[in-house]
């Protein structure tokens, strides 16, 4: 079967890619478009580091055939990072030591972004519930929770 062209909106820009059947959004982002902020961890749905927002909803790009999201809006970590400096959530992660090896960070930050978009002032429990699908082997999560709380404060006072 020949490849197909799939068009979608990525980080505010319309893109078109040519893919083989069942190519995942993760493969398209990393290998076709060379946007490598979205990581590849387990490709089993278990680690969450490949999380992107599809129409604002956190989804696992490793399990998502790109054809399924044709015409839809995808936002990756590159999409929220300003040209200069960092997004307030990124800055809060940096300042609170919530990034050690950093492999989980792109996924966790996208989830926190989706959470704060819906709920600008989440409780600790709500933050824990939100990141339950993201594994971090370094931080022990405590710095991530602090960073998320700090990010909420920064965004509210901004």
């Amino acid at each position, binding site marked *: *079967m020949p490849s197909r062209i799939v068009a979608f909106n990525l980080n505010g820009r319309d893109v078109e890619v040519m893919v*083989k*059947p*069942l190519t*995942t959004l993760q493969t398209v982002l990393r290998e076709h478009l060379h946007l490598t902020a979205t990581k590849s961890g387990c*490709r*089993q*749905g*278990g680690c*969450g580091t490949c*999380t992107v927002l599809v129409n604002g*909803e*956190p*989804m*696992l790009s*490793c*399990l*998502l*055939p790109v*054809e*399924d999201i044709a015409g839809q809006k995808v936002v990756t970590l590159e999409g929220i990072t300003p040209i200069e400096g960092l997004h307030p959530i990124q800055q809060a992660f940096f300042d609170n030591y919530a990034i050690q090896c950093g492999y989980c960070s792109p996924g966790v930050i996208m*989830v926190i972004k*989706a959470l704060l978009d819906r709920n600008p002032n989440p409780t600790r429990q709500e933050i*824990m*519930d*939100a*990141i*339950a*699908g*993201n594994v971090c082997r370094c931080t022990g999560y405590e710095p991530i929770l602090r960073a998320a709380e700090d990010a909420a404060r920064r965004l509210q006072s901004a």
Partner: protein
Amino acid sequence: MAVQDYFLPKSLDQALDLLVEHGPSLLVMAGGTIAMPLINDGVSMPEKVMGLRHAGLNTIRRDNGTLVIGATATLTQLGQQDYIPMLQEAVRHIGGWQIRNMGTVGGNLFAPPPAGDLAVALLALDATVTLASKKRGLRTILLQEFFTGFMTTALAPDELVTEVRVPLPRGKTGYVKYARKHANTPAIVTVATHIVTEGNKVVDARLALNAVGPHPIRAQRAEKLLVGLPLNAENISLAAKEAAAECDPSTDAIATDWYRRRMTEVFVRRVLEHLVEQE
């Protein structure tokens, strides 16, 4: 061998046509949270795949006294209805946020144990499953009859699940998933129950268990034991022992069969005690 073709039908009709045309070489998937990991790993190497995300089967509506859930409604969608709070509770205990955004209600009926944490709640509520095929049209069967064995169901090769229908519960419901962690974790045992009482006696009882059998199962001996009796500490304890005796757990990386059986007794007891406390 790489996947040769991927179909995304825009309607149930198109999907059923594709199923007839391609036969068993076509792998069906909805949210892909079970199917895609296997494909990524090379454990499953389908020639052709059909995705149901755009087949128009994802609405949730109330029809008289019944909640009608489209097969491809996501777990997140189901968590947003509030006609049946037990189903919201079940959804909260499945995967993480991303899995709930992708995984579907229909897909959960095919999840091998210890997954099936929604299906067990549907089983306790006497849900029915609607199956569609090109040749025979629609048929509706009890979810209990849908499960036939470990990773086998009553679904015929030319059929798709289109809907799950759940009658609004008449009695009290309870749900508990016991696992090693609080969230995003496989079950050691999941218990879902629906108990109807009249006066102080139980007139109808459903006690469904997951992760302690080849598929979500009903503890029918324990259910029978409760009918006609008051729901008190003594009867609850007898029912919990019976449920533990009749379940059929196996050992995996999460727990041994011995531990699962012990915990079945503990958590059946706790769920039922909790129902009494609600009074």
